[in-house]
């Protein structure tokens, strides 16, 4: 049991810190640069991404295993996944609007942005790539749990990057860079420095988890 917890914790924290989707793997740069101006919109977008990522992976992972792989249709992955994600986002939007209007008012604005956001399709594809092979070895339940933890970690990493970068940005906005660097260029350079700080986590997570459990 403790071995399982260690596996899941390692996946979760390495997705958040070591393989951070935005700052290390370059997935979802558009919302990262576009929405991180204000703290409330960063948090809103981040939470919406976590929700959509987990639900999308929960749907696409079984689809890949039972529908595509079982029928030798692996090459249809891209088309099926993007359609499923587009439909899912639409469904989530409708459901939220109908049943939880308060949450819809907070997150609804960001949902359409997420459909064509590469981090959601990215996590769906990468989860299948990394943990699809575990189905044969450990059974579907375990692999599915791994994929979900991976998706949740990716989403939390996105939220963390957004919130951290929002703080960096509010400082940069008051700074006085050279005229040519004003606006996006200085934002990108500060993103480089933020991403530099995440490189320090490489190799750290496995050792800490092993020491703790």
């Amino acid at each position, binding site marked *: 049991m403790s071995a399982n917890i260690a596996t899941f914790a390692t996946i979760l924290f390495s997705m958040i810190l070591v393989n951070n989707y935005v700052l290390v793997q370059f997935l979802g740069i558009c919302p990262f640069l576009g929405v991180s101006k204000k703290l409330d919109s960063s948090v809103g977008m981040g939470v919406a991404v976590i929700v959509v990522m987990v639900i999308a992976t929960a749907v696409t992972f079984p689809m890949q295993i039972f529908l595509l792989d079982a029928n030798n249709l692996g090459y249809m992955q891209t088309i099926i996944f993007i359609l499923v994600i587009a439909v899912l986002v639409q469904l989530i939007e409708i459901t939220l609007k109908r049943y939880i209007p308060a949450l819809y008012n907070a997150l609804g604005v960001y949902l359409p*942005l997420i459909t064509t956001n590469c981090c959601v399709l990215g996590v769906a594809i990468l989860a299948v790539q990394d943990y699809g092979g575990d189905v044969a070895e450990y059974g579907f339940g375990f692999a599915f749990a791994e994929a979900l933890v991976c998706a949740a970690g990716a989403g939390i990493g996105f939220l963390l990057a957004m919130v951290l970068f929002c703080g960096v940005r509010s400082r940069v906005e008051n700074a006085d860079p050279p005229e040519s660097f004003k606006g996006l260029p200085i934002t990108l350079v500060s993103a480089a420095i933020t991403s530099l700080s995440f490189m320090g986590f490489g190799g750290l997570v496995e050792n800490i988890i092993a020491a703790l459990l």
Partner: protein
Amino acid sequence: MAEKQSKWKIFTAGIIRENPVLRLVLGCCSALAITTTVSGALGMGLSMTFVLVGSNIVISALRKVIPDKVHLPCYIVIIATFVTIVDMVLHAYMADLYQTLGVFLALIVVNCIILGRAEMFACKHTVVESALDGLGMGLGYILTMFLMSSIREIIGSGSWLGIQILPEGLDKFGLMNQAPGGFFVFGCLMAACIWVERKLNKPIERKTCGEVLLEEQDAKQPATAEGGADQ
């Protein structure tokens, strides 16, 4: 955009004047991720151009057939078809490149350059014009990728297109090959671009597609009760 444009103008627009990455700030993800080596960047650029031209042609050919209400899902299916073609061809014939591009090959589907051009250009113009637009935009994308990857590969690994340029003994600045280098080079290139614009007295306002979409949402929010317009 004026309706009557010469074909040459449409073709050259994407290369410098409306360079997708540096001026329109579209498709940053792949531009940051796949520019550690020149060969990988060129491969990505060519795949992107193929998908861009193909989807632009099909979308503009079908622009009168696709119903307005479901246009986005239709575009996505068309684009995904071309991406799948590239994916299968590269997997079969260029395994190394396929490995380098990794997940970003499939992610061409959600690259904002392609959906952006479909939405802004292909759905309003003829097949030939759309093909030229796709080709121009693709060349602009390749050009930017080429520049960025050249800087990163020379500084980061001391080589260019796999050929050793800097002396072997020299210490390499390996950070350029990693994530921070991507952001840094992209920021500096954009600053250089802005510097030139300022010299030519033609500054433009840059907006990432995230901001543009969010503003559209804000404008739409009070007016529409049923969110039928999107997706």
